[in-house]
Each structure stands twice: as C-alpha cells, then as structure tokens.
C-alpha cells in the first residue's frame, strides 16, 4: 500500500489517476478548493477500494498556508510515497492583452503556488530519504506561442524548476517527474472543438499511474506528443511566427 498525496484532486486527470490508486488499495490524502466535490470524490474513492481517504479544502493561492496543509496531510499519511500535483487552470486566450491582474493571478496559481508546494514536499522527501513527485505541466510550456503565452510561461517555469530538481536528486531515491499532457477532454477544455489529437482523462490517468511505478524525468501523454512537440520546439521562428499555433 502506498501513501499518496494529491494536490488539485478534483481535476479530471487527478481524479482518473486517483481511481486507479484507489483500486490498488492505496491510502490517499486529497487537497483541492471545492469542499463539496472533495466529499463526493473521497466517498467514491473509498468505495472503489482505497485503504483510507482524507481530504482538506483550501485556496492554494494563499501560499503561506501551504506548510500547514502539508503538515495536515502528513499527520494522516505519516509519509509521502507518491505526490501528484495537478492543480491549475487555463486562463482565457490573450488575457494579458486586456486584463493584466488576471493574467498575473493565473501565473500565481499555475506557477508560484505549484513551486511553493514542491518546496515543502522536497523538504519532506529529504527527511524520509525517498519519494516520488509528479507534477502535471503541459506541452504548452515547451515553446512560447501567441495563443496563450502567460499559461505557457507558467508551465515552462514549473518544468524548468523540475529539471533542476532532477539534476539535484540524480542518484537518490527521490524521483521527480514532469508530466506533459497534450489536449485532454476535461471540463477545463470544455470550450474547445475536439479532434483526433484529444485524449480522455482516463488514458492520461493510466499513463500517470504507470510512470509512478517506473519513474522517468519527463513524459508526454499520450506519448505521440513527444514527436509533435519535438517538431514545434525545432521549428525556426520565421516559420512558427507565420502560423496561428
């Protein structure tokens, strides 16, 4: 049985992953903003087979409360075998053009609050000398594009931070994983037209549960995104800038 902390546990991808962990009989601690949803999800995961499920509702933007939240989850789990960070949101496209405070607020949620949580988790990992942390970033962070630069910048910040940690904890029992999902059909992307590239949260959840068992530094989910992003990263500016990507 693994002791698992999930931050942003009501996100569709986190919930899909949590169901697999519940089915495997792990003990879970859920953190999210929406208490009502947490109650329902905790109940669901218990029936699906989780050894124990506890939760706390909190506004993650208040980073000074993070230390207490991590303490609270530790008093239930005692140790962190797995930690999944899945919170964040997609700000409206071109938000920076007309609402700077909102753009910066999204950066705070998607980058600053995530980095804050990572710090506290790493502290605990160092104490227990092991642990696996995976953070859901995005393919969007691989290259800045006109469609949503502030979102891409936040995700890129987290990805680069994770790279640094991977370097730091190389050859230890602490594993840091950067998970980069492509287009996922969730309430966060409800407004988008869905095509062939779209995946279901269940598919992404399976990929995440798998990578916890065999940690890698960075995975794209579904995996074909590795190749799409390879092309996008290597595309010369003079070509990229003529597209609407």
């Amino acid at each position, binding site marked *: 049985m693994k002791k698992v902390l999930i931050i942003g546990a009501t996100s569709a991808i986190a919930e899909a992953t949590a169901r697999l962990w519940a089915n495997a009989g792990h003990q879970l601690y859920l953190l999210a903003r929406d208490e009502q949803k947490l109650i*329902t999800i905790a109940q*669901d995961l218990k*029936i699906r087979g989780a050894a124990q499920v506890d939760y706390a509702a909190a506004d993650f933007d208040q980073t000074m409360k993070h230390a207490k939240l991590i303490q609270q989850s530790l008093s239930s789990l005692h140790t962190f075998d797995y930690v999944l960070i899945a919170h964040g949101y997609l700000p409206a496209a071109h938000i920076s053009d007309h609402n700077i405070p909102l753009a910066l607020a999204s950066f705070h949620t998607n980058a600053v609050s995530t980095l804050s949580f990572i710090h506290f988790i790493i502290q605990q990992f160092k104490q227990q000398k092991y642990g696996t942390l995976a953070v859901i970033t995005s393919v969007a962070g691989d290259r800045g594009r006109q469609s949503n630069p502030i979102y891409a910048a936040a995700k890129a910040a987290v990805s680069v931070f994770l790279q640094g940690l991977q370097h730091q904890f190389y050859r230890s029992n602490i594993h840091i994983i950067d998970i980069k999902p492509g287009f996922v059909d969730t*309430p966060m992307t409800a407004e988008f037209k869905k095509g062939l590239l779209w995946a279901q949260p269940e598919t992404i959840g399976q990929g995440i549960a798998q990578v916890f068992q065999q940690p890698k530094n960075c995975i794209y989910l579904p995996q074909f995104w590795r190749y799409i992003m390879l092309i996008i990263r290597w595309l010369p500016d003079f070509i990229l800038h003529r597209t609407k990507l």
Partner: protein
Amino acid sequence: MVFLSGWGHYPIIAADLSRPAHLASIRQQLNNSASIIGQGHQRSYGDSALAQHMIRMTTFDRLLDFNPKTGVLICEAGISLQQLLAIFVPRGWFLPITPGTSYISMGGAIASDIHGKNHHLKGCFSECLYSFSLMIASGDILECSRTQNAELFYATCGGMGLTGIILTAHIQLKAIQSAWITETQYSAHHLNDLLDLFEAHHQATYSVAWIDTLAQGTQLGRSILMLGEHSAIGSLTLAKKNNRTLPINLPIWVLNRYSISAFNQYYFYQGKTTTQPRQVPYQTFFYPLDTIQHWYRLYGKNGFIQYQFVVPKAAGRTALTHILTTIHQYQQYPFLSVLKAFGPANQNYLSFPMEGYTLALDFKLNNTLLPLLDILDAMVLSYGGRLYLAKDARMSETTFKNSYPEWEKFQRVRHQWQAHTRFNSVQSRRIGL
C-alpha cells in the same frame, strides 16, 4: 455547435453540447433553452437523446454509497454499466437487469427503462431501482420512488429524459459467485420451433435468440436460442481483453443480401453444431458487440435504424410470420436480428415491454427502407404491439399515441412539473409530446 447523432448515426443534428462538472452549471443551463435533453454515452439509437441543447452527464460518474453486505448501491447517473461492472463483478456483485451493451449510463438505463435477457422473469431495469434524484425544470432536486413523488417516478422510468435530468440512482445489485455464464444453445429450424423452445425454457434465467431473417418458406425464422445461467464455478476476475475497433465506415455495398445471407448460413451452422453447454465470460454472453468499438460503421456512412417492436403473446406467431415475410417482399435485408420473449408489462407510463415477443432488426438506411418501416408500424399496431423509444428515429405521432395508451398520463405529469417548458428532444417533438 457540434454535429451529433445517436448510435445509429441517423439522424445527425447540429446543436449545443455541454458537459457540466457541477450541479450549479446544470441548473444555470436550464434557463437557456426550451429544448434541453440530458444524455449519457449517446447509446440510444435514434433521436431520443438529441436536442438543440444537450447536457452530457458523463462527468457525474461517482459512487456515493455501497453496502457490501446487502449490495445496495447509490451512484451518480453518468456512470456507465461497464464501469460499474468492472468495479463490482470482482467483488461478487452483478446488475440484476442489463441490456445488450454495457456502454450505457445509469441515467440512460432508467430513462429507457431498459430490459435484458431475463425480462421474462425479472422485468425492466426499474425493478432493481429503489429511487433516483431528479433535477426538475425549476432547478430543484427531487428524490423519486414508488412512495415519494410516485407519479414522477413512473413517468421518469422509461420517460426518455423528458421529466428532468436524472442525477443519482439508488439500486439493488445481485450476488454472483463467478464472472462466468453457462451458455447453452439450441437451434430451431422454423419460427414455430423457436417459440416452442422459448415456452419450454421459460425458467431459464437468461434467454435470447439470434434469428435468420433472410430464411424463407419452410425455414422461416430459423434461429439459435441462447440460454444462460450464472455459473457457480470459475473466478470473479477475468483476464483483460483488448477491444477491436472498426476504424472507418465500411462502403455501403459491403452489407448486401448475399453477404448477410452467407453470414447467416455460417452463424446458423456454427450455432447448430454447438450443442454442449459452455462457460463464457459474462461480457461475451451479455455484450457480444461491445468488443468491437464503433460497430455502427458496419452499416456505412448513411447509418442504420434498429427497428425494435413488441407484439402481444397471443398474436405472436401470426404477427412475426407476417412481418418477416413482408420484409422479404420489400427486399430489405436486416443484419443481426434478435428475438426475445417478454414477461408482463409494468406500471411505468412509457415502458416498452409487454407480455409477448420482441424482435430487433438492424436495417442499413436507404431510400426504400423508410416506406417499408411505415408499413411495418401499421402491422405492429394492428397486432396490438408497439415500438421501443430508445431505438426509434422515425415513428409518427399517431403511431406513438395509438400504441402507448398512457401517454396522456405521462404528459400530465410533465405539465404538472413544467417539464414540457424545458425538456424536449428531437424525438419528443416528433411524436407530439
């Protein structure tokens, strides 16, 4: 705006589809339109889950309460039966009533008051349903059972989503010892033999027949009857099988008189030679087509209509013979046809089953099909039968109103709760509800 259809890919409509994650957002949407319908996994065949504004409930797929001693479960209505079975079969629980596909939602099972291979003994899905919660037109949520808001209960079971949005269900599961089914096959060389076999095996827990609708004359209605019992041996967990996918629409000409006839010939003889009881996983017995994703593509780009009707027992032989010969006269060749004996009807206003025989015929859509189906409608009605709303894409208002005698009671309940001001599907408008 999206283009959407039911499982039969006919008709296709352009409409708004929302997939809310919170009750509050459903409530909000109720004020936006007078043509709203809730939907699950889009497995009803025709236009019953299509409307100008569709609310897809699949994100509501959580388990809310389960008693492992009694098998009583409360869950959200968007969960599919397949998801439920994957969780509960390994723990020794099964659905007391299940249709021929596991990809439907709990809400859809209630709204269509689905039936299964044990209808002759156990009735429709509502038989294992204690209560459900329903968001009505006002946005309020009501708990409905046979004792609480009873009229709304009877209207909603089989009511095709026209009373409100089904949110949760409180159901009874059934204990099983194994995930396997003991299947026994019998071949019948004529329709008469088949109906006799149904009669003789009335006590079998599950029964259904595949019927060769192309065979005529002395072989009219030759068929394979499949009986099933929950096995006492074998484990509760099954090895995971990979599903196959039909990646593209097959060309329209692939299914024709000759290819179907060849398939039927093969299927009848393989059934005829399988006389010993055999053990099959529950999915193979109940959901044979679920292993082929997108199997509707067999019928090509125009889609298909599953024509499912029921005729009363007394008229059974005459009616089925008459209908099978008429189909042949019109040179329409249904692929995959299924016949089943029904037990008595229930109290729900729009539930489909009545004591008698139901035949489901899959017709590839073409220009000459629709006039034939109108003729079949008249024949079915003249024998006192009716059509299944969950499969229907084209019956007329008159056909519906003449064959569902309680439609006025149903409509009265809808008016009483203002459901008619919000919940209207393409189908409900067509059949005059």
